[in-house]
């Protein structure tokens, strides 16, 4: 059993871990003036890993090691591509922002990489403890990143809140895992599934609920979403972006594996499925509703990302390859849509020192590119064609309707149209507001690249979704044949 080719399975993870350590060392060794070069260095190493991962996706076979402790299947690799792409875009758009932090010490990029590593572990984990380790690696990195602006009381407040709530949730998750272990004697997904069988006991319910709550916390599923807006608002903007995009996707990767392999409705409970429908609906409704009165762009995006979690849950409820494909597809385009929006938010926040929506006034005049990218990204989040979000929603909801759930499709479509309302409020400020007293904020370099890249991908996938769709279906079928 123990024969495995580490090169085929763990190369990206190992490379990333090494890179994180190297960056940490470099940050300590080189003088502050030379730390500017760390962003490109990180970016290039990420590009390298990403290229390998892409190769990995298409050419390396499905394997696992240590009795299914860690999986290398297209599902996992797909998510790795997603995390790496997100990390790359975050890094690219964060250059200027991080430079301006007075106590900038170079470990920022290292932490981004460790967080990415944690996510990759979550995506590949075939066992609860490995998943937990990945999750904690990611989360602890995020604790630091969220509180990275150590002089800013908001940032540290967000950090401490995240830490306490995150630790509580992971304790609850762990408690659930321990119960599962007690019930089945194993922590491996496949064995757990066979161990639990079709027997129900209060303990198995409790374990399920605890695990659902623990992962639900990470994906900010209502009613476990309360932390999200506060932390998103307090964290440095690039971190918020990474948190909103990648950590959520990682939790989804774990949740899909856990849910589909161990707790799905055949193996477990129809009630559970009803419950998920209710929770997903609540998430879509409350997330979108609470976004409406927000005045801070990050808080708005936070609530919007809560709502997006609801849409993604829809794909899980479908419990089918089509549903998983929808989640995968949507998660990927969600990266680019959100990244476009956050790149603009980061840029404005860097130049104007503000995250308030009213300070976006006249952005269409002051920086047309930023305004256009912001508009396109927000509308993609809302699912307006021809942007990618529409196709993604179509995949998700056609999957769930294929299973006979129609009510949730109504809720989803209507609420995404409601979301257009608050997105358009931002658009209105950018296009209608005069912003006479605000400075011109031209976009340059890596930030411009990030924006343009996200924008183009968002439109390109919306217009021609086939390549990504086929990747997603391949990945989904590697998990759910």
């Amino acid at each position, binding site marked *: 059993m123990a024969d495995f080719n580490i090169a085929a399975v763990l190369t990206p993870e190992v490379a990333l871990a090494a890179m994180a350590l190297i960056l940490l060392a470099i940050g300590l060794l080189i003088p502050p003036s030379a730390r500017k070069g760390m962003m490109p260095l990180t970016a290039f190493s990420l590009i390298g890993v990403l290229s390998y991962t892409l190769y990995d996706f298409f050419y390396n076979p499905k394997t696992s090691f240590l009795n299914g402790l860690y999986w290398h299947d297209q599902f996992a690799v797909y998510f790795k591509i997603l995390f790496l792409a997100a990390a790359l875009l975050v890094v690219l758009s964060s250059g200027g922002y991080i430079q301006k932090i007075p106590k900038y010490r170079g470990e920022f990029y290292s932490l981004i990489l460790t967080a990415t590593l944690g996510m990759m572990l979550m995506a590949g984990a075939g066992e609860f403890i490995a998943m937990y380790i990945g999750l904690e690696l990611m989360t602890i990195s995020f604790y630091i990143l969220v509180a990275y602006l150590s002089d800013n009381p908001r940032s540290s407040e967000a950090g401490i809140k995240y830490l306490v709530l995150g630790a509580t949730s992971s304790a609850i998750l762990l408690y659930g895992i321990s119960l599962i272990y007690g019930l089945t004697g194993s922590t491996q997904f496949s064995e757990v599934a066979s161990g639990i069988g079709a027997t129900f006991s209060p303990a198995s319910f409790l374990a399920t609920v605890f695990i659902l709550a623990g992962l639900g916390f990470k994906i900010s599923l209502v009613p476990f979403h309360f932390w999200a807006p506060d932390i998103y608002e307090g964290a440095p903007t690039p971190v918020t972006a990474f948190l909103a995009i990648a950590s959520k996707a990682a939790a989804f990767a774990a949740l899909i594996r856990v849910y589909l392999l161990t707790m799905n409705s055949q193996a477990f409970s129809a009630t559970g499925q009803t419950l998920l429908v209710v929770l997903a609906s609540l998430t879509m409704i409350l997330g979108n509703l609470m976004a409406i009165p927000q005045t801070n762009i990050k808080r708005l995006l936070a609530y919007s990302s809560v709502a997006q979690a609801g849409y993604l849950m829809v794909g899980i409820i479908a419990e089918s390859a089509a549903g998983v494909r929808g989640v995968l597809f949507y998660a990927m385009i969600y990266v680019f849509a959100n990244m476009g929006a956050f790149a603009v938010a980061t840029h404005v926040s860097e130049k104007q020192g503000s995250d308030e929506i009213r300070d976006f006034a006249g952005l269409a005049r002051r920086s047309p590119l930023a305004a256009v990218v912001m508009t396109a990204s927000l509308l993609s989040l809302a699912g307006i064609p*021809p942007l990618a979000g529409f196709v993604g929603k*179509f995949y998700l909801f*056609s999957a769930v*309707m294929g299973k006979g759930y129609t009510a949730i499709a109504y809720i989803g479509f209507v609420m995404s*149209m409601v979301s*257009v309302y608050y997105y*358009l409020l931002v658009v209105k400020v950018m296009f*209608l507001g005069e912003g006479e007293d605000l400075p011109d904020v031209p976009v340059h370099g890596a930030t411009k690249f990030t924006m343009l890249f996200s924008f183009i991908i968002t439109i390109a996938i919306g217009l021609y979704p086939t390549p990504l769709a086929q990747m997603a279906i391949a990945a989904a079928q590697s998990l759910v044949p």
Partner: protein
Amino acid sequence: MSSALPSGGSFLLPFILGAPLLAMFVIVFMPKDETKMIKIIAAMGTFVAMALSLFAFFAYDRSLGGMQFTLTIPWVPDLGVNLAFGVDGLSLPMLLLTNLIGFSSIYASWNMENRAKEFFVLLLILITGVMGTFIARDLFIFFLFYEIVVIPIYIMVIIWGSTKRVSKEYAGMKLTIYLLIGSAFLLVGMVALYLAAAKQGNPTFMFDQLAARQNLYSAPFQKAAFGLMLFGFGSLISMFPFHSWSPDGYAGAPTAVSMIHAGVLKKIGGYGLIRLGVYVLPLGAKYWAPVIAALAIANVLYAAFIALAQKDLKYVIGYSSVSHMGYVLIAIAALNPTSINGAVAMMFAHGVMSALIFSMIGFIYEKTHTRNIPDLGGLAHQMPRLAIGFIIGGMASLGLPSTVNFISEFTIFMGSIRVLPVQAILGIAGIIFTAVYTLRIIANVMFGPRRPEWDQLKDIRGPELVPLIVLGLVIFAAGIFPNILFGLVNSGVTSSGLQKVLETVSQAKMGGLF
């Protein structure tokens, strides 16, 4: 991907679609001070599209019928989406209408100086989007294009709109959200239809395929799905009681947007109801027909009465367009080939008419800075050409013979009085009230004593005359020689299989007055 280009296929439609798009891209990369050049390029782009669609209009083989100038490219194979273009007798008039109005709307905005670059970029996107809905043969592509247009409209309303009874921000938001909520339900219906059609494999979005698989749709399913489409398309065509976005929206919107919105965008609702509702879900259509008919009467009479009480020119025309759409709805409810002929022709006719009248109102507003009817009067003294345009529009609105509107209305009445006599009679009564409010605004705005405060106004001239000439010509040409338009529409109705569907549906007796 196996999306090799098909060996056969006409690229005419993609060219028509591409012309304004190309112009848009050119404008994007132009300096924003070159407003003159921007307008010329926009006009060129739309002119090419208009010329090509006129060519298509006359090159279409009416005796052959069916979809022509088709082009099919597999687009998303796993979903069954095809990038399929093609026009038949139902969509070709709409395509031509779009381009006529699009071309005119550029000229109606000729005096636009404020942020002209953005304006024309958005306008061209809008035109392209509307065009795309009509040439799509694939439901997915249809929907894609339909929603493309919503956002540019919002931005155009909030930037270049005007605030009267309601603020332009409110009007724009209402318009957008209303239509989007409608489209959300539509989307549910569309997904359900798609899934139902894919029950036995081979998922598809092609209209003809969806229609060919009718045996897969149970009657309850058809009823429910048609209900959803009715809500979605109904709010787009401003069916009572889902019409309230329309007057506010038009009043808030800049001229070009009002023209396109009232002229063609609204018609997507009617077109969709026919193409998707009646054609694909005939049993559903039959089930809902009495409801549509009842609401249509409300449209016609209710909106006509409200139009009587309006003080703002654009509100009058806004409510009038709600009222006129009632005729289209009656025709759809009547479910026979004659009435469907009339419905399509009416959409064309009303499009041309409302675009003309909105462009004239736009000029009035541009010159006098008011649309309040009591403040206006006697404009025929200073602006006789504008008055002519306005009167032509008004006469078309009240269905004067020799305008295309008359013959469309007549066809609708003819088709609907057979099956829905009571509703048809009530609807026909609407022509009286239409005459009242139309003549009132003509009298109060154009006629009457000379007002010295308007003496410095210049009549429309040069490029400003283009909407009047183009649209006026179409109104009369198609009104005097109706076969130009109706021959095409009729071939669409009779050759698309729609006729067969309608005949099956109308087998069941609906009761009658006599």
